[in-house]
C-alpha cells in the first residue's frame, strides 16, 4: 500500500514537472514559431483578424522578395562580421599571449580593457559619426569593420587570456630549453592547446557582432548596410506593410546564430559573463 502511494506521488510530481517545463518552453517559443509561419504565409494571410497561425497554402514568396531586395545586406553582414572577427581574433590572441605570459601592463590592464565593455555604445556613436565624416568613411565596409574590431578586442583578449592562463608555464619553458623562441613556442604548442578556446571565442564575437544595430544604423546607409539595419527599414513602411518578407529576413538573420549556438553551448556561460562565473 505504502509503495503504491509513494509511486503515485512520484509519477504525479514527474508529470507536473514536465507540464511546468513544457509550459515555460511553450511561452518562450511562441514568437519564434510565429515568425517562422509568417515567413511562409501568402500575403493575404500576413495581416488577418483573427491572426492565422498555420497557413493553408504555404509559399516561399517572402523569401524570394528578400533575395531580390536584401542581398546586399546579407553580403555585407557576412563580410563585415566575419572579417572583423578574424582580424580581432588574430590581433587579440597575440596581445593576450603577451599579457598572459609576460604580464604586460601589470595587474590592472585586463580589468581596464574589460571596462571598455561596460560603456553604452551610444557614447561613441556621436563622435564616431563626426570622425568618419571627416575621414570619408561613412557607409564603408572597412569603417564598420574597424569599429567592430575595436569593440571585439577587449572580449577576445579577456577570453583567450583565460585560456592561455590555464596552460602551465612549464610547457613554454621546456620548449625554450629545447631551443624554441617565444614565437615558436606560441605557434607550435600553445596555439594548439587553446585551439578550441579560439574557435569558441571566434564564434562568440561573431554572434555578438552579427546583430549589432546602433553603429550600423548610424554609420551605414546603402553601400555597407547590414542585416539588422536592412531589417529595421521594414519598420518605416506604412503603405505597403510587408510582414512576410520581414519575418523571412528575420529568419535568415537568425539561423547563423542558431548554428553557432550549437557549437559553443559549452562555452556560452563563460563567454556571456566574461568569465565571471567559472
Amino acid at each position, binding site marked *: 500500500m505504502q509503495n503504491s502511494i509513494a509511486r503515485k506521488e512520484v509519477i504525479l510530481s514527474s508529470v507536473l514537472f514536465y507540464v511546468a517545463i513544457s509550459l515555460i518552453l511553450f511561452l518562450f517559443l511562441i514568437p519564434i514559431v510565429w515568425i517562422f509561419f509568417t515567413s511562409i504565409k501568402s500575403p493575404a494571410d500576413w495581416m488577418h483578424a483573427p491572426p492565422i497561425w498555420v497557413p493553408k497554402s504555404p509559399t516561399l514568396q517572402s523569401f524570394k522578395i528578400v533575395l531580390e531586395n536584401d542581398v546586399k545586406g546579407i553580403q555585407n553582414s557576412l563580410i563585415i562580421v566575419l572579417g572583423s572577427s578574424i582580424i580581432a581574433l588574430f590581433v587579440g590572441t597575440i596581445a593576450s599571449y603577451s599579457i598572459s605570459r609576460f604580464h604586460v601592463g601589470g595587474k590592472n590592464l585586463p580589468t581596464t580593457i574589460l*571596462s571598455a565593455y561596460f560603456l553604452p555604445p551610444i*557614447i561613441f556613436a556621436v*563622435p564616431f559619426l563626426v570622425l568618419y565624416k571627416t575621414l570619408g568613411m561613412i557607409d564603408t565596409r572597412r569603417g564598420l569593420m574597424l569599429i567592430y574590431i575595436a569593440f571585439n578586442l577587449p572580449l577576445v583578449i579577456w577570453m583567450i587570456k583565460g585560456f592561455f592562463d590555464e596552460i602551465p608555464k612549464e610547457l613554454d619553458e621546456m620548449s625554450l630549453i629545447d631551443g624554441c623562441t617565444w614565437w615558436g613556442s606560441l605557434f607550435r604548442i600553445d596555439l594548439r592547446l587553446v585551439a578550441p578556446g579560439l574557435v569558441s571565442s571566434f564564434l562568440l564575437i561573431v554572434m555578438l557582432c552579427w546583430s549589432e544595430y*546602433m553603429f550600423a544604423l548610424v554609420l551605414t546607409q546603402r553601400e555597407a548596410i547590414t542585416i539588422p539595419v536592412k531589417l529595421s527599414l521594414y519598420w518605416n513602411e506604412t503603405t505597403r506593410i510587408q510582414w512576410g518578407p520581414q519575418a523571412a529576413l528575420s529568419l535568415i538573420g537568425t539561423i547563423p546564430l*542558431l548554428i553557432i549556438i550549437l557549437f559553443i553551448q559549452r562555452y556560452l556561460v563563460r563567454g556571456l559573463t566574461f568569465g565571471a562565473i567559472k
Partner: protein
Amino acid sequence: MVIPALGTIFGLLGYPLLVSIRMSFVEWTPLLPDNPFVGIDNYVRVLSSPRFWNAIRVTFTIIGTALPIELCFGFAIALLFNRKFAGKKIYFSLLLLPLMMSLVVVGLTTRMSFNQYYGFVNYLIEMITRRSFSVDWFAHETRSLFMLIIADIWRWTPFVAIILLSGLTGLPIEPYESAQIDGANKYKIFRFITLPQMKYPILVAILLRFLELLRFFDIGMLSTRGGPGTATETISIYIYEHAFIYWDLGFAAAATFVLLGIVSVVVMSFVRILSEKTF
C-alpha cells in the same frame, strides 16, 4: 606584441571619447557654420530638460520592473532545470532560442505581435480569458512601456536562467545531504543553503542585466520608437534623437557624459559590493 591590440583599442575608443568631451562643451550643429565655445551650457540644458528626466524615469522604470521579474523567473527556471531528466538537452537548447534572436528581430516581432487586430498577443489573451480583448498596446503610455518590458523579459530571462543554472550546478552537495538528514523542509533548504551560496552568480546576473538595460535601445527603436510621444523614450533613444534627428550634437554629447556618470556610479557600487563579498 601587445601594441597593435592596445593601440587599436585605446586609439579607436579613446580618441572619439576625447572628441566627444570637447564636443560637449561646444555648441555644435552641422547646420551652423561655426562651433562657438559655450562652456557648460550644454550640460545645463541637458540637466534642466524635463524630457531628459523623463528618459531617465522611463529607463529606470524598465530596469526596476524587468530586472526583478527576470531574476525570479530565471531562478525558477534554473531550479527546475537543475536535475537530470529525460530530454534535458533538447529542452535546454530550445530554451536558449530567445537568446539567439537579435534585438532588432525582437523589436520588429514585438511590433507584429502586439498589433491590435493582427497580432497574436491579444488573440491569445482572448483565448485564455474567454473575453474580448482588443487593446491597442501602442497608443497608450503605460501599456506601451509594459509591452517593452514583456519583450525584454521574453528575450533575456533565459540568459539569467543560464547564469543561475551554472551557479547552481557548481554548488557542493554536502550541505544538502546533511540538511536532509537533519530533516529540513524545502523552503528552509532553499533559504539557508542555496540562496547564500548563490550570491555571486545572482550579483553577476544583476550587474550584467542592469548595464544592458541602461542602454535599452534596439527593442524600443524597432517597436515604439520612443512613442507614444516620449512615453517609452529611454536614455539611449533620447540621445539618438537629439544627435541624429535634431543634429544637436553638442547637447547629445553632454547627455552622453551624464549617462556615463550614471553608469560609472552603478559599476563602482557593484565592484564595491562584489569585493566585499569575497571577505
